[in-house]
């Protein structure tokens, strides 16, 4: 899994933190830096929301992200679009290709499947909906700011008639995704199992969040040039960057 290409020069790292299973985390990822989310022990799901940190009414839009790129699953080279026709993040590296824009997040209701919940109490099993509420409230955002989220490290399938099911294909130990911020972005992560994960035991492994000063994109950067839509998305994003640059 690990190659030199995947290792980060330690002098470039500005933040490195382990997020326990069930926990939430949020952080400002500045334009030009990259957030690496690693699953050191594998993962059965991480829910992610993101916003323009300078103006959080601009938000990650799952539907726009899927339809602009003609795919509801994300992988290396693809982009996370805001609802303003701009790019929040580029997926500059991705070792598993298991990310969906459709499944939504776990809730008190989806957590009812955990069999020892009654004995241990609901409080032992965090869900992403409540995690999002807590993380956002601390930033003076709230329920109305929760958009359909991105799911990392898991695979769902869609049948021709629309059937939506879990596919037992999840991130393996060491898998990671690199998200390069294309504007100053607020990220909220909830490290809870995907809501469609059928397991009746709560098994959320720790993940690691590393922020690093990634290189300036080259002129032939994959994410910036892969499709005509990407080129236009970056025209919009770069124009905005000029406007807010300090």
């Amino acid at each position, binding site marked *: 899994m690990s190659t030199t290409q995947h290792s980060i020069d330690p002098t470039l790292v500005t933040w490195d933190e382990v997020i326990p299973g069930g926990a939430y985390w949020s952080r400002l990822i500045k334009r030009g830096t990259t957030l690496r989310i690693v699953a050191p022990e594998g993962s059965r799901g991480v829910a992610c929301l993101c916003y323009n940190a300078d103006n959080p009414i601009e938000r990650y839009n799952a539907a726009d992200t899927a339809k602009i790129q003609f*795919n509801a699953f994300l992988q290396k080279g693809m982009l996370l679009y805001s609802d303003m026709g701009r790019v929040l993040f580029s997926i500059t590296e991705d070792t598993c290709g298991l990310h969906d824009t459709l499944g939504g997040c776990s809730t008190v209701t989806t957590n009812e499947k955990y069999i020892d919940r009654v004995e241990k109490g609901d409080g032992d099993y965090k869900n992403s909906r409540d995690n999002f509420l807590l993380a956002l409230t601390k930033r003076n955002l709230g329920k109305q700011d929760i958009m359909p989220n991105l799911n990392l490290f898991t695979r769902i399938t869609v049948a021709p008639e629309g059937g939506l099911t879990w596919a037992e294909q999840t991130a393996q130990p060491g898998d990671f995704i690199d998200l390069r911020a294309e504007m100053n972005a607020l990220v909220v992560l909830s490290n809870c199992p995907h809501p469609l994960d059928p397991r009746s035991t709560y098994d959320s492994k720790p993940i690691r969040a590393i922020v690093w000063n990634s290189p300036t994109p080259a002129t032939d950067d994959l994410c910036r040039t892969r499709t005509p839509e990407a080129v236009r998305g970056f025209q919009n994003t770069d124009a905005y960057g000029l406007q807010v640059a300090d």
Partner: protein
Amino acid sequence: MELDPQQAVYDRVLAARKPWAKVIHKGQILRIVDLGGNQAVDFLVYNADDTSERYSAPDTIRAQGNIFITTGTQLYSNDGNVLMTVLKDTCGRHDTSGGACSCESNSVRFGLDKKWQHACVENFLYALKDYGMGKRDMTSNINFFMNVPVSADGTLEIVDGISDPGSIVDLRAEMNALVVISNCPQMNNPCNGYNPTPIQLLVWDE
């Protein structure tokens, strides 16, 4: 039981490209008629008594294990409650994955010059302002009469419609529900057959 249009308490035609909003009271039935066929109807719905509770596409598709809206679908809110139930659908299936078109996303999808065109988000904002609501209140939506298949590999595209002229969908409000509609003006893909047309909206008391 057939609903008799003569008995409807509300009956009007919404012109092509126009917004619309109305509170549908608990127990009332809203019918949307695709008069000309293949006309996408972008649709938001809220708890009218507390609009921070609103339609959630992910919760709705997960609850029924299917990405399409059709007869029997319960429209779930972000708080896990049922806002409306689809009682009848003569089209077959409706989309809730494709979102609403906006000037900004049009500029990315179809060309930077397309940002000057009319779009559903413009209609939604115009309609929401009368209820003291705004951009923050647009989370996820349904696109009635719009055809967006998703393949096993995730491929997703708005393709030719399957809605014949006169197709209907009947929705019963399970709580007082604020419904906001944009009669989609999109001209750059087949969601409206490249010809936006009027729709008819009827409401019956329970």
